[in-house]
C-alpha cells in the first residue's frame, strides 16, 4: 500500500512535534565570517559632537519642525519620515511648493555609519549635510538669518540650545550638530538578519539564508561587491546602468563633484537596511519593487555607457532572484514606538 506511506510518515513526524514545513525550512546557521555584517551598537561621532540627551532631543525638535522652512510647511521629516522608512515613498523628492526634484530622498536609517553623505557624496558628514536642504532654494528655501533670530528669541529653543551646547551660539554649527546627533539615533540593527548573525538560527528562513548566500557570492548575485558589510554599502560610487542615464542631459551624479570620467552617472551605494520600507528604488526612483531592482542587475543594466565594471549580466533564475528579495526583506528591524517631539509654541 505505497500510497499510505507519505501519510504515515507525516503522522509520525507530527507526533514527534516536527512539521514537514519545518523540515524543509531548516536554515543554515551563520558562520564566523558572516558576523562581519554585525553593526557596531552605535555609529561613530565627531569629537566635538558627542551624543547627549539634550543634543538628541534638540535635534529631534529641529528635525520635525516645519518652521525651519520659508513657508513653514516643510521639515526634514517631510522627506525623511519615520512613516516611510525615514524616506518619503516618492520616486523623487518634492521640495519648495511641491517642485519635483531630480533625486529620491535617501533614507537616514544608519546614515551615521556612512563615511560620506548624499547621493553624490558632496557632504562628508551629517553635520556638513544638515543645513543643505534649509539653504537650498529648491527645498526648504529658508532665510537662515531669520531662522536663527527666531530660534534665539523662542524661549523653548533658547533653553534647549543652552542645554545642548552651553556657551555656544545658535547658528549653523550648533543647529547642524543637533540634527546630526538626532539622525545618529536612527538605527536599524535588530532585523531577522541581525538576529540570525547573533546566533538565532531560525530568525531567517532557509530561503532568506539562501538569498544571503546568493547576494554575497561573487559568481551569483555579487551584490555584496558594492553593498558591503556591515552597513550594506561600500560608501562608493557606481554607474549602475539605469535607463535615465541614456536620456538627453542625464544627471551625472558624482562626476559633478569629482570630474573623473568613470564617475559620470555614478551615485553612492545606498544601505539596504530597512530597504523593504523605502520603495521605490534607485536615485531616480525608477524601480518600483525590490524584484525590479534585482531583475535590473540580472540583465546587467539597461544603459551600458560608462557602466561600472561591477555590473554584468548575472544569469540568476527567477527563484534565485526571489530568494535575494526575500533576504532583503529580512533586513527590516521591527518598528519600535517613536515619541514625537513637543515643539515650542509660536
Amino acid at each position, binding site marked *: 500500500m505505497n500510497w499510505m506511506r507519505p501519510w504515515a510518515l507525516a503522522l509520525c513526524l507530527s507526533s514527534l512535534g516536527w512539521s514537514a514545513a519545518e523540515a524543509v525550512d531548516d536554515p543554515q546557521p551563520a558562520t564566523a565570517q558572516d558576523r562581519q555584517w554585525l553593526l557596531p551598537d552605535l555609529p561613530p561621532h565627531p569629537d566635538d559632537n558627542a551624543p547627549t540627551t539634550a543634543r538628541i532631543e534638540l535635534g529631534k525638535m529641529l528635525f520635525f519642525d516645519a518652521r525651519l522652512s520659508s513657508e513653514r510647511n516643510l521639515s526634514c521629516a517631510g522627506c525623511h519620515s519615520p512613516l516611510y522608512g525615514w524616506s518619503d515613498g516618492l520616486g523623487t523628492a518634492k521640495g519648495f511648493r511641491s517642485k519635483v526634484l531630480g533625486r529620491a530622498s535617501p533614507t537616514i536609517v544608519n546614515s551615521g555609519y556612512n563615511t560620506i553623505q548624499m547621493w553624490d557624496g558632496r557632504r562628508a558628514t551629517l553635520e556638513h549635510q544638515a543645513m543643505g536642504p534649509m539653504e537650498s532654494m529648491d527645498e526648504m528655501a529658508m532665510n537662515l538669518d531669520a531662522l536663527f533670530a527666531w530660534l534665539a528669541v523662542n524661549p523653548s529653543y533658547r533653553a534647549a540650545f543652552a542645554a545642548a551646547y552651553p556657551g555656544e551660539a545658535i547658528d549653523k554649527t550648533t543647529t547642524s550638530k543637533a540634527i546630526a546627533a538626532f539622525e545618529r539615533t536612527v538605527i536599524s540593527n535588530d532585523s531577522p538578519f541581525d538576529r540570525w548573525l547573533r546566533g538565532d538560527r531560525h530568525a531567517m528562513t532557509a530561503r532568506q539564508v539562501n538569498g544571503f548566500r546568493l547576494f554575497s557570492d*561573487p559568481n551569483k548575485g555579487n551584490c555584496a561587491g558594492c553593498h558591503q558589510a556591515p552597513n550594506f554599502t561600500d*560608501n562608493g*560610487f557606481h554607474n549602475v546602468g539605469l535607463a535615465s542615464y541614456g536620456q538627453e542631459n542625464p544627471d551625472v551624479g558624482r562626476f559633478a563633484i569629482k570630474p*573623473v*570620467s568613470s564617475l559620470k552617472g555614478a551615485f553612492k551605494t545606498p544601505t539596504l537596511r530597512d530597504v523593504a520600507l523605502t520603495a521605490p528604488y534607485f536615485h531616480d526612483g525608477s524601480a518600483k519593487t525590490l524584484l525590479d531592482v534585482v531583475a535590473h542587475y540580472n540583465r546587467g543594466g539597461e544603459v551600458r555607457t560608462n557602466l*561600472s*565594471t*561591477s555590473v554584468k549580466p548575472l544569469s540568476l533564475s527567477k527563484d534565485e532572484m526571489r530568494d535575494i528579495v526575500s533576504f532583503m526583506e529580512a533586513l527590516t528591524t521591527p518598528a519600535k514606538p517613536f515619541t514625537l517631539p513637543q515643539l515650542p509654541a509660536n
Partner: protein
Amino acid sequence: MQFHPQWATVGAIIVAAIGLFTSLSADAAEHVLAQKGKAFSVKKLQVKVGDTVKFVNEDPFAHNVFSLSDAKSFDLGSFGQGGSKTVTLDKPGTVEVECAVHPDMRMVIEVGK
C-alpha cells in the same frame, strides 16, 4: 653638399631627448602598490621624477586610480580584480591619489628630483 643649420638643431634636440629618455629609463624605478581591503597598501610613497607606480587591484571588486593634483593629473580608469594600471611621475611635487569609486581610499606620492 649644403649645410642646413635647422636640421642640425632638430638632430641635436632628438639626440638630447633620446639621451634624457635613456637616463630616465636607466635610473627609473617601478613601485608596485596593492589595492586591497579598500585601501592602498601604503599611505605615502617617495619616488623620483621618471619613476613609475603600478597599482594592482587585489580586491574582488573594481577600483579606479586618479589624481587631480597640479604635479600630475591623471585618470587610470577602473579595473577589476587582478587588473593593474601604471602611471609615470614626470614632474616633482605632491600627487594626491584617490580611488574614484571608493573615496575613502587615498594615498600621497611625493615626487622628488
